[in-house]
């Protein structure tokens, strides 16, 4: 498993190898994106089967970029259907919500390079819920983490920009269903959302490994507007108790307003 993950990381992280540094002007972006989710899920708490996840994505974000730092905040929501090859009757719904707040500083960047490297940290809340037939069966994973963040911003031309973002959680409050999927404590917490989303264990990459890797291409339409497209690949691997593997493939198209 780890070899496979390393292989994929090596491939997706490789653009930074060709980095060239350039000056980056200070800008504030606020934007909205919509997209499509075509992911795969294997959650043994829910079923031993491989599910294909298809749905719509919505993303609202703020990014403040200067030559020294990036401050970003985004909210991502997705919902849709899960299907499996085993039976057409197993179709289920999913809901996913993510909140991310990050701060990165530039480093290892030489003057006059087209590439700027940023390193930093962020807090991230990842919440994914599956529902079969109005709670006849359900499962969820909630991970509230502190992430290591890396961003490489590459200026292709005056109007074209390419960005690679990688984040890796290293401390996580992980919330998963109890051993038997449902118990009296969970039932009691249903009426108390704060308890529900925080009733977990603090852990690290041994029990929760998640990598998120985003490629963003943006094109500057004017001094005030950018359009962009984004491909996001993510892997979530939680082996404790009932194993979960979730592979995210998401594409977005959006527009930013430059403040």
């Amino acid at each position, binding site marked *: 498993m780890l070899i496979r993950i390393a292989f*994929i990381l090596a491939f997706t992280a490789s653009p930074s190898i060709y980095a060239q540094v350039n000056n980056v002007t200070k800008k504030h972006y606020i934007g909205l994106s919509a997209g499509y989710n075509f992911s795969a899920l294997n959650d043994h708490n829910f079923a031993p089967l491989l599910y294909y996840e298809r749905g719509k994505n919505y993303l609202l974000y703020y990014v403040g970029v200067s030559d020294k730092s990036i401050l970003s905040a985004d909210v991502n929501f997705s919902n849709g259907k899960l299907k499996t090859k085993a039976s057409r009757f197993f179709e289920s719904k999913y809901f996913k919500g993510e909140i991310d707040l990050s701060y990165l500083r530039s480093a290892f960047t030489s003057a006059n390079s087209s590439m700027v490297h940023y390193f930093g940290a962020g807090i991230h809340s990842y919440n994914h819920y599956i529902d*079969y*037939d109005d709670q006849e069966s359900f499962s969820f994973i909630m991970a509230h983490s502190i992430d290591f963040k890396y961003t490489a911003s590459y200026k292709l031309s005056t109007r074209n920009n390419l960005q690679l973002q990688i984040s890796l959680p290293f401390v996580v409050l992980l919330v998963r269903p109890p051993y038997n999927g449902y118990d009296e404590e969970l039932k009691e917490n249903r009426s108390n959302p704060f308890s529900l989303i925080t009733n977990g264990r603090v852990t690290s990459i041994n029990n929760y490994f998640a990598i998120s890797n985003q490629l963003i291409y943006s094109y500057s339409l004017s001094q005030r507007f950018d359009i962009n497209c984004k491909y996001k690949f993510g892997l979530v691997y939680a082996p404790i108790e009932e194993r979960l593997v979730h592979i995210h493939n998401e594409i977005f198209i959006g527009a930013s307003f430059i403040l």
Partner: protein
Amino acid sequence: MRKIIVIQIIACTSLLLSSCEELIIETDEKNTPQNNFQLLWEDLDKHYALFVSKKVDWDSLHKVYRPQVTSNTTEQQLWVIMTKMLNHLNDGHTTLENPESQWSFESGDSLNLLAEEEFDIDLVQDKYLEYYSHTTEPSMSYGKIKDKDIGYIYMNSMTGLYPSRIDEIVDALQDHKAIIFDIRNNGGGEDDYAHRIAGAFADGEHLVFTIQTRNGENYSDFDEKVEVFTKRVGDQQYLKPVIILTDRYVASAAETFLLDMLSFQHIRQVGDTTAGDFSNVSNTRFLPNGWIYKYSHQLVLLPDGKNMDGVGIHPEVYIKNTKSDIDTDTDLVMNKAIDYLWEEYGIK
């Protein structure tokens, strides 16, 4: 240099889109008779809550039934083998279903199904009731016994949107000297709903049972006991004699309701022993062949430590109808309840 980057991006993106599911998630579960059997058996082995209390040797059942499953076993043969194995649990909350073929199975339900024919609400309505009113809550109806100062309530399930409708019924029947509360052919619903209904008859707070959920691989691994108490709910409670009518069909949340009610001083049970399905049912589980199943994942104990799963609640006054009684327009259970109110309380 830029071209190299673009080519790399396209290459790695294509790789991810096309094959990462196969790279990272191992092959999907095989849809073979042996694997479907094994997945079902192992899931219950890890999660089913009542092996100890029901004295079921799950390993020995594996030794009996697993060799009967081969790669040549047909779908029908696998269904028979699995249902035979599950029937040893004698547990109405353990079910197997084939949605494609619309096959369904409930463990140990033969007596429960017979009880369906031993009750007829139309007979009760026509022969015994002066009037019979429906409420906006489909599960609840009520009326009055002909020529008696006795109210009548019928609930065919413990599910709905407005359990507080029971308060209106209690208000309407408050002046009668007694109530016959009929829950025959009530297969259950939601425990919270059942507790709310019982709250309209509560004479106080009583410990009725404890719930534990299996939380480990050993059959005796359970979490802490959660105590469940009755409580008064609603503006007024009905505290005059109440006779609850039961049959073998009464199960699950209907039995929860019955346990609540029997903890009150003014309640008596007349009829047949109930089904004995107390544990809450698990999430629906899925098999590679498209079948779904559920099972009991909790242990419910009475305050004295007894587990009644598979046993049921025995009535104070045992009586049951046969199909021929119903066919000849006789409801022995209703007759007995009316006689009991006269003999024990002088109510007519």
